[in-house]
């Protein structure tokens, strides 16, 4: 960008006027050549993006706009259906609960993950004995395969033999039907998801804290700022760019969480823990007779939501930079 701007004419009109015409042409040719080189460098990336992002997106859109039966799926001659799949999905009794659950799941997960992650990051930022080891231990949820952690949570929350209910029993609380009750199923998967998401927030926020110069705190301390004031007036504002990244990535990651919910509750009982992601999968692959069209339509709704927040993020970021 800066290179291109240096030989822009309005930069130095005097020099431009003095230059002979042939020089301009020469310069223009060189400019074209360097642009070609630039494109050649970008080409692998463009091919990669086309093959792994644009084409699947296109396929998903195509699936959602056609009326697929198993036969037309195999033969590839499904008739164009316009918005019929979207219409069906929007009027499905599952749509309302799925949207609501998706938002509750995502927002509650992110809020608690971020809060806990930030608290832990601040805690670990002051070095003490074993802090490195403890911090490493907090990463464990991130390292475990999701199938392991989800199955373990499902087992711990089991209403009959789960360790959580056993612990509740020991302190005199009556057992909770965590996964089998429509009132608790969503809460249960949110709890498990928060546990899985804290390390991500911790790591990024911790590295953000490391980048805040220590002398700022010294200066603040000299000015008489207490621990809370230091956090509120220094740490939190200086972490804002990192916070934005953590929240957006967290949003996109959480929005599409599928395996955790599927393993723990299958979106049930009823639709009580169905999100758009699990519903999309259930339509496409959950029964013996796949409904690819509506399944893809739900997937696209999910993409649009994520895209909207992505745009919001870039918008906010640009305003911050300006």
């Amino acid at each position, binding site marked *: 960008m800066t290179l291109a701007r240096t030989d822009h004419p309005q930069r130095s009109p005097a020099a431009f006027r003095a230059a002979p015409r042939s020089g301009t042409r020469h310069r223009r040719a060189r400019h074209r050549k360097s642009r070609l080189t630039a494109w050649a460098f970008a080409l692998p990336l463009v091919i990669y993006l086309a093959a792994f992002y644009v084409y699947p997106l296109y396929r998903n859109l195509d699936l959602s706009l056609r009326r697929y039966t198993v036969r037309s799926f195999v033969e590839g001659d499904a008739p164009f259906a316009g918005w019929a799949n979207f219409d069906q999905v929007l009027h499905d009794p599952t749509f309302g609960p799925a949207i609501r659950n998706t938002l509750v799941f995502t927002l509650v997960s992110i809020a608690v993950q971020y809060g806990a992650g930030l608290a832990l990051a601040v805690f670990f930022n002051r070095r003490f004995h074993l802090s490195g080891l403890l911090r490493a231990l907090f990463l464990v949820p991130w390292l475990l395969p999701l199938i392991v952690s989800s199955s373990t949570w499902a087992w711990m929350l089991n209403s009959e033999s789960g360790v959580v209910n056993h612990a509740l029993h020991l302190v005199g609380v009556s057992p909770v039907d965590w996964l089998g009750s429509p009132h608790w199923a969503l809460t249960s998967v949110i709890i498990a998801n928060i546990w899985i998401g804290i390390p991500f927030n911790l790591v990024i926020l911790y590295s953000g804290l490391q980048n805040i110069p220590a002398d700022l705190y010294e200066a603040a301390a000299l000015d008489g700022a207490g621990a809370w004031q230091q956090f509120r007036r220094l740490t939190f504002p200086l972490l804002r760019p990192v916070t934005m990244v953590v929240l957006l990535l967290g949003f996109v990651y959480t929005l599409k969480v*599928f395996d955790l919910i599927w393993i723990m*509750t*299958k979106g049930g009982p009823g639709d009580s823990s169905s999100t758009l992601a699990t519903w999309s999968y259930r339509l496409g692959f959950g029964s013996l007779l796949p409904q690819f069209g509506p399944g*893809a339509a739900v997937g696209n709704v999910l993409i649009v939501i994520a*895209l909207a927040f992505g745009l919001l993020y870039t918008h906010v970021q640009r305003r911050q930079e300006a």
Partner: protein
Amino acid sequence: MRHLYRPFVAAVLATGALTSAAACSSSDGGGSGGSASGAYTFWDPYPQFDASSDWAKRVANCGASAGVTVKRTGMDTTDLGNKALLAAQQGNAPDVMLVDNPVVSTLVQAGILNKARDLGLDTSTIQPNIIGAGTLDGAAYGVPIGANTLALYYNGKVLKAAGVDPAGIKDWATLTSALQKVKAAGKKGITFSAIGTEEGSFQFLPWFWGAGGDLTKMNDPGGVAALSLWKDWLAQGLAPKDVLQNTQTTSWQEFATGKYAFGENGTWQLANAAKAGFPYGVINIPGQHGGSAPVPTGGEFVTVPVQRKTGRYAVSTKIVNCLISPTSLLATDTTLSYIAPLAAVQKEQVQRDATLKPWVSAVAAARGRTSNGLGTKYPVISQQLWTAVQSALSGGKSPQGALDMAQQAAASHS
């Protein structure tokens, strides 16, 4: 333009990870195509058997006797149907494929299975109710490799302690009172699987049919009675609440703890039952007012998917014939703990192992889920049925309300 474009690309990138999850990408089925190479591809839903297992050796031997090598892939049963559709779309379906019987009608609907008759496979000796699940418009689209079904396993020790005689369980009332006695004796009643998948419907069907339920009219009194029975068991604490998440495997694990009097489970658990460490027995699932309830047939069909190179069928047929020969069936069904689909082989199975006797009679009385012209309507109905079971048992809805909604949803689907 550029101004707008940049944030757009950035946002697409940020959300790009989503697409891989949401797109029903077609790249899955590739890799093991059966085009020009000499190897014949073979898919089955038995991932538990590795290359050293008897089953894998039998498949390899059948290939060898047909003069080819067989490349076998075992995958999860729910994956198999979807993978088959994707592979057929890509034109690289396997040469021979074992699929769960209710999937057959879906694959036939997709037009990717050959008729057994066209391949020259003889199905005349197979029990009609077993092959019924793979029969559409009078033509069979595969051959059952074996059948299994559901019955009630009981724990003799628990029943004895509670003073219950299993022979006295003739209908739902006697079963429920037996469960109450067991509970009064401090043990647990019955465990089953009411999970929100096909397994949940499979387990519910004996009760549904046992009350005269009709899958095309789910909200009839019969269906409501069956769902009320399950709901009452949960409400009275005769069945655990976690049946809602139980697969048939986890339900079995509950039963195997020795705390439960009854467990609804399949033929395939027989080998585990012997290892359970307590005296067990098997009774047929009772109908509402007595007699044995009709149970759904389980088990896989050997099918030959449609290929572009029709010249491959001759060898595929040889492989299938080898697998379904009586000697091979006897060995296969013993390995899988299934009941053979042929009367002659069944007789031999019972001779070798007398505990199979109640299972043979249960299989004889079993119904295919997709039989009686239901075909691909069954998957739609089944999904609504398990949803209704889940919402009624979790307390969200009444049995009548849940089944009304299921019936409405299934009817509006066509």
